[in-house]
């Protein structure tokens, strides 16, 4: 393992954090923003809405809104309904 890879793995390991995502406990790599969380989850940000600790995050703020340990995150989309 080269040094660069070593440090990447170490930083990832050290900054892994636990959050609650859609009601389930989940470990995610840190540091994260809303934008990088969506990318990590392979979700198209244009099709969802995100709530962080019960407050909606505006789409324009995804890049500069950090996710912190123990955050409660809801990610929703539209489904069929009446």
């Amino acid at each position, binding site marked *: 393992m080269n040094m660069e890879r070593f440090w990447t793995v170490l930083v990832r390991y050290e900054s892994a954090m636990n959050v609650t995502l859609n009601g389930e406990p989940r470990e995610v790599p840190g540091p994260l923003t809303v934008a990088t969380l969506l990318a990590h989850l392979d979700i198209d940000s244009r099709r969802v809405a995100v709530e962080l600790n019960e407050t909606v995050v505006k789409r324009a703020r995804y890049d500069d809104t950090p996710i912190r340990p123990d955050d409660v995150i809801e990610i929703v989309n539209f489904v069929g*309904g009446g």
Partner: protein
Amino acid sequence: MSDPFVIAGRTFHSRLIVGTGKYSSNQVMRAAHEASGADMVTVAVRRVDFTRKTESLLDYIDTSKIFLLPNTAACYTADEAIRTARLGREAGMSNWVKLEVIGDEKTLFPDTAALVEATRVLVNDGFVVLPYTNDDPVVCRKLEDAGAAAVMPLGAPIGSGLGIQNANNIRIIREQSKVPVIVDAGVGTASDAAVAMELGADGVLMNTAIAGANDPVAMARAMKLAVEAGRLAYLAGRIPRKMYATASSPLEGVVGR
């Protein structure tokens, strides 16, 4: 005859609003939407399912032609409904919401006190609120006073297909309301939609009656025609109901008399 359907300053071509739930496939839904002629459809706001990759509902709705109306279905408190409305606003492209605050699991009747409260909060937050409510003129008046852009009394319980259960209340609600009245829920077949429109409703919202029909696309077209027919009949002004016959043909000149 010019007869625009305007809600909160926005004009719709169709007085039929349809849902997106319970279809056997997204393809059938899209075909039914097309046949219905509706230019507003309801959608629900739910958690993204991370466990499986599903195609997006939005791939089957042409949002350049069809306006999305997010709902707050399955919310049982004002707070839940308000939260869901705010998420729907961010996920969608507008500040409109079909507001539901359910009060009872079995009937899906609304909790009207919480509904009025949630309407007030969301109107103050800049929402165009279309509340699903009971066929109760007093509640409809309170919702209008709270700033609702339309009132949406049920014809019968959601998904019941029973048709308009309290026609007189719908008429009273229409007479007293300054905002559009949309009969939301309870339609079972085309005649129910026509009755709602003949009573003076400005529009009809339905989901199960179309999605649950054996042929949803054919039923969607039936509903389109029924809503148009009912509206025309309402505007045309029906004859009074009478107990006995009045002959349509002349009484004079009958052969052999």
